[in-house]
Every structure is written in C-alpha cells, then in structure tokens.
C-alpha cells in the first residue's frame, strides 16, 4: 500500500509518501534514496508515483530526462502536454506496459511539481493542474479531507506525519516511516511516523 500527499503553500509544493510496502507478506522499507517513490531532477522538478507496479515505478523514476522544464525554466500545462506526456507515453509503450481498461492507461498516476506548480498525469494520460492539494494512492480518499483540513499556521510536513499516523491506525501497512520533500529546499527527508 502506498499513498502520496501533495500540498501547495506560498508558491512551494510539498510532497509526502509512505516508504513501506508489503511484498509476499514481507514488510519492506524503501527508505534508501534510489528506491524512494519520489524523483528529484537536476532542474528541481519533483516527480512522485504511488505503488502500482514497483519495478516499473523505479524504472520510470530513474529517467529524469523525461521531465524537462520549458525553455523559460518553467513547468507549465503546455510543457507537460507537449513534451512530458508524449515522452512518458512512449516510455510505457516501448516497454509494453500500457494497460487496457477502456483505453490505454498507466497503472498509477504521476504527480509532477516545480516551484509552486503542481500537476497530475492521470492514469488515462489526461493532465490536471492543482493549486491546493492532491492525494493519490490506495487510501487517497481518506487523506484528501485531511489535506483539506490543514490549517495555515501548521507546518505542512509535520501535518503529513499526523495524516500518516491517523491513517496507520486503520491501515497498518502504511508503516512507520515516510519521506518528505518540497520544491524550495529539494531535500528528501525520511521521517518517523510518531
């Protein structure tokens, strides 16, 4: 089980993701940077992806060249649709990873952020822009109202910890640790759920 939280405040996008998964009944803690569910590119773009197929996620997130900024150094709606979306689609198609529900899709959406801009490439490859918050993953419906309830005076990353703690009361495979990063300092930090 995995869940991704994202929250936009003061032109900064914050990401939080749990780092434990259960594979064949075994608890696995993915808190080493190479296997974290969040990619940080040299241009400062953050890309995050909830579970789905673990190895596919790791392979996708080891290709920062798929997520370039535009010539003005911005991540725009147009840049996502004209450059990033076709590259991600090709990446999936070349590997024969595209699933079929009604039309070709990814098994998990992607959240992409830079500065204060947050976008989602949905499983069906449609693009959505967010200026508030977004949660994706297995228990996102539980997390979304928690994100909506974050008060302006509260520290966002601490609040992510509170959300993971609340959720772990219902889903033990949320695990004990989570990773946070934001588009301002771009430091991936693994924290304990307290």
């Amino acid at each position, binding site marked *: 089980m995995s869940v991704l939280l994202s929250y936009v405040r003061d032109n900064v996008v914050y990401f939080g993701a749990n780092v434990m998964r259960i594979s064949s009944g075994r608890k696995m803690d993915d808190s080493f940077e190479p296997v974290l569910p969040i990619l940080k590119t040299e241009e400062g773009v953050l890309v995050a992806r909830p579970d789905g197929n673990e190895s596919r996620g790791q392979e996708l997130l080891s290709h920062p060249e798929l997520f370039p900024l535009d010539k003005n150094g911005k991540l725009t*709606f147009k840049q996502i649709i*004209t450059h990033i979306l076709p590259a991600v*689609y090709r990446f999936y198609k070349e590997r024969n990873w595209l699933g079929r529900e009604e039309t070709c899709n990814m098994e998990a959406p992607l959240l992409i952020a830079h500065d204060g801009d947050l976008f989602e490439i949905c499983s069906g490859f449609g693009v*959505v822009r967010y200026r508030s918050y*977004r949660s994706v993953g297995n228990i996102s419906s539980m997390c979304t109202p928690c994100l909506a309830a974050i008060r302006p005076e509260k520290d966002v990353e601490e609040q992510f910890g509170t959300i993971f703690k609340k959720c772990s009361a219902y889903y033990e495979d949320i695990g004990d640790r989570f990773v946070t990063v934001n588009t301002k300092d771009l430091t991936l930090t693994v924290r304990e759920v307290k």
Partner: protein
Amino acid sequence: MFVAIKDDETTYIGVSSKEELCDMSEADYLLEDNLHIAKIAGQNAMFAASGDFLTFQVLTESGKKYMKGEVNAENIVQELVPQIVKINDDYDRYDDKGRADARYAVATPEALYEISLNLSVMQTNISASVYDQLAKGVYLFTEGLPTPKRIVEVYKAIEQFARFELFPISIYDVRTGKRKIYKK
C-alpha cells in the same frame, strides 16, 4: 461534460468536469486549465470536450491553428476530425469496440456543432455530452428562460438522475468568450 445551447444572439457552452475530477478542491476544479473548453485560435469559436480528455488537451495545447478555414460543418469534417483521429491513433484512445470515449462541441455565435463518439458531425441547437435525451426534454420545457438559465436547469436535471455532482458549472458566451460561474 458539456451542455451547449444556441439561441438567436449567441451560443452558450456549459462545462463541468466534476464527475471526472473528483477529490479536488473547488478552487482547483474551477481552474480554466482543468475545464475542457478552449477558444479556437484565430476564430470567434470555442471547442469543448467530454469523456476521455487526452486528445482534446493534446490538440488545444499543440499551439497549432487547428481550424484554418471558417468554422462550419464541412471544415470540421475536413480539418478538425482528421486531427482528432490522428491523436486518437497516436495515443491509442480506442476501446475494444474501436471507439474513442470522447464527445466534442464546436460553437460559433451563429452555429453549434456536435462531434459524436463515432466522429460524425451534426449541426444542432442543443448538445449535451451525456443524458442527451433528458437534456433535450429540459430544453423543450424551459423555452422562454434565458439561455444560461436553461443550461443550469439541464445540469440540475442531470444531477438528479446521475449519481455525481456537477456544480459549480462554468458557462461561456461564445460571442464574447466570457465565462460565468453558476452554483446551485
């Protein structure tokens, strides 16, 4: 989804994507990037989509002038539909029956066109991307009301029968390009 009605003065297009973009704040939902409607570059016309919106986004963000000729049924068939087909092919937007799950409305102040699931083009005075017959029924029974109000009534009726929320909706006047938000 969209509901478009043409009257004697202009054409109005109502758009709501709330049934697709769930779990989202109202402010995000109302961002124009997230509404599947766009002005057709170089034309006094608008283009809306409903359903699978990848093709619409790729087309409208391409930066190309995707309708060069006058916006009419003939040119929609000759210019716009082939571009939709091309993108549908590029991104394999077809289901098992070979249909892409998207409907479109193309509107000028003087005319309204609907592009159906099978990509046939039809000129009409009312077009609704879902619950089409219900929409036409409400349209008939609201004659005399201002057109935006008729669109609101169509959305209210659809909300009653469908199990998803649609409001707030955005209604665009194609003649002016202005948008007005309507809440329940």
